[in-house]
């Protein structure tokens, strides 16, 4: 390990990385297990003359983000489960208006009030648009405290490059745990020029941030432009980590913290003579479909492991399109899949006949 590392909670690393990435503006509302992020920025942002404001609600926070992003700021908000659900109207507006910003979901268990332990059950919401209308937003899934920092810097860069809200989809475990982090240098503190921002129209035509288009021809054109942007992002920005996939006969697919537990299981499987490998999507949207297809090239079967009832597995199935058996193993409610459980699944699948493949009903 190199020097210059500090021991931070995932939530704190994310907060500090945001500051290093030039974020000078945060609007949020407390909710476990993301509160340390808000508290960190409550201390930190005033030190850099930034704006920290605890909003009266998640809805107010996301709409403050809209205003601030529209006014040209690098801005972030964060929440979890119920709070993210409340932000869905706002997220749809941000995506429609093409406003760069970063939205953090440190996932807890649902549905409803649920529990505050880690979960990955907001995958659908994040990747399919929990809000109304056709939109997508880049979703980054860190798997370590280091990535909580690195992907935050990346999130701000993506937001700026594509004029889009970007979501960081972490979970309570990542948020609460501490690991050594090497803090990223981050891009220049100044965001790129935003000629479209509403900053007062001195010396230019007026700017408008708006999502309403009553004429269908106009709104269809807006939607088409959005879809083109999404296609560009889908083509350019998919990222994944591959581990021992070259010769893998059983390919485990997992994201976030679960991927690390799965890696341990893969190691144990290899030790036991099973050719297992791990594929970890780092971007959940765009889903790294091409990389997965190539990682699965030698695989007899694929095992998706998630802390939910089966969500990313749909993207795995869509990607492999019937070409591979796709199995699923999940835990819910804050129960974390144990390495031993995953290993047993790998064993079970390894011993399976080709025909006995679980398909969606």
């Amino acid at each position: 390990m190199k020097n210059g590392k500090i021991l931070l909670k995932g939530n704190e690393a994310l907060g500090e990385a945001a500051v290093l990435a030039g974020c000078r503006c945060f609007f949020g509302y407390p909710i476990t297990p993301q509160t340390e992020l808000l508290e960190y920025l409550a201390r930190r942002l005033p030190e850099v003359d930034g704006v920290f404001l605890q909003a009266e609600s998640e809805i107010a926070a996301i709409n403050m983000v809209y205003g601030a992003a529209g006014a040209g700021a690098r801005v972030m908000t964060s929440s979890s489960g119920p709070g993210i659900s409340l932000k869905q109207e706002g997220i749809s507006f941000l995506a429609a208006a093409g406003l760069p910003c970063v939205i953090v979901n440190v996932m807890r268990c649902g549905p409803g009030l649920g529990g505050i332990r880690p979960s990955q059950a907001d995958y659908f919401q994040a990747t399919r648009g929990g809000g109304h209308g056709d939109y997508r937003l880049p979703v980054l899934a860190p798997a370590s405290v280091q990535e909580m920092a690195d992907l935050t810097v990346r999130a701000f860069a993506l937001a700026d490059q594509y004029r889009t809200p970007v979501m960081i989809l972490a979970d309570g475990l990542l948020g609460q745990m501490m690991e050594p982090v090497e803090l990223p240098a981050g891009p220049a503190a100044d965001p790129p020029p935003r000629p479209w921002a509403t900053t007062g129209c001195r010396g230019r035509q007026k700017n408008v941030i708006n999502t309403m288009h009553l004429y269908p021809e106009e709104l269809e054109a807006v939607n088409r432009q959005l879809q083109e942007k999404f296609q560009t992002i889908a083509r350019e920005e998919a990222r994944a980590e591959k581990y021992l996939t070259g010769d893998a006969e059983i390919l485990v697919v997992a994201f976030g913290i679960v991927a690390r537990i799965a890696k341990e299981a893969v190691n144990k499987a290899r030790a036991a003579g099973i050719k297992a490998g791990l594929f970890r999507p780092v971007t959940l949207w765009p889903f790294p479909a091409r990389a997965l297809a190539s990682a699965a090239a030698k695989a007899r079967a694929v095992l998706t492991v998630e802390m939910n009832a089966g969500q990313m597995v749909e993207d795995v199935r869509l990607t492999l399109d019937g070409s591979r058996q796709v199995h699923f193993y999940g835990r819910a409610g804050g129960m974390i899949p144990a390495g031993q459980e995953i290993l047993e699944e790998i064993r079970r699948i390894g011993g399976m006949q080709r025909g006995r493949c679980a398909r969606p009903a």
Partner: protein
Amino acid sequence: MAAALARPEALAPEPMHYCPGCGHGLIHRLTAEVIDELWIREKTIGVASVGCSVFAYQYFNLDMQQAAHGRAPAVATGIKRVLPDRVVFTYQGDGDLASIGLAEIVHAAARGEKITVIFVNNANYGMTGGQMAPTTLPGQKTTSSPGGRDVKQAGHPLRIVEMLATLDGPAYLARVSVHNPAQIFKTKKAIRKAFETQISGLGFALVEVLSPCPTNWGLKPVEALRWLENNMVPYYPLGEYRSIAPGAAELNETKRRTGRTERG
């Protein structure tokens, strides 16, 4: 002959879509005149809300954002916090501000957010076709209170200015009306004060404007003004409810900020 009383520069030249006799067009113009007179058009950012006046983003000839229903004060907060030396105002209907957006306006006021709010109370939801608003008068018929507002079921109308006046945050609060030329003058004066309050750094300012919605009231424009005067004004007393006079420091500030002229 020279044109007097011509369209202010802060109002875009295109025609507006409002119904004949609707108060929105007038209140837009008064707001634009004040912006012109304070020479702040090029440093002002307006926030349009959701209601008939959603197109305010088009009609004001200055930087505008269009906010989700009820959330204009939060959007304005976001803008103002990032650009504290700009002038930020919201333009909101009574459904937008007093119903779905109540938490946002109260908290912006309580925070003393330095924004100006133009609050157009026409006692119903105009855009969606005339449903009951929190400001609909007792007994008033709307499409969602077809038998007239029954206070036993639907409760009593909210008096927003009075409610906000219990908070420490607001620096200027007034209720005005546009039912005749004299009141229109007063309205403009109040809007001017509300902008000056912001510019001088005193804090949150809100002007509630009682405004006709002839279409949904089912009245001709002239009748609508009479109905407003006879029914709304008694329920919603006009006047200033809070007015923190600017001190010398604030007046200087106002001068400094508006003096940086744009036209001259």
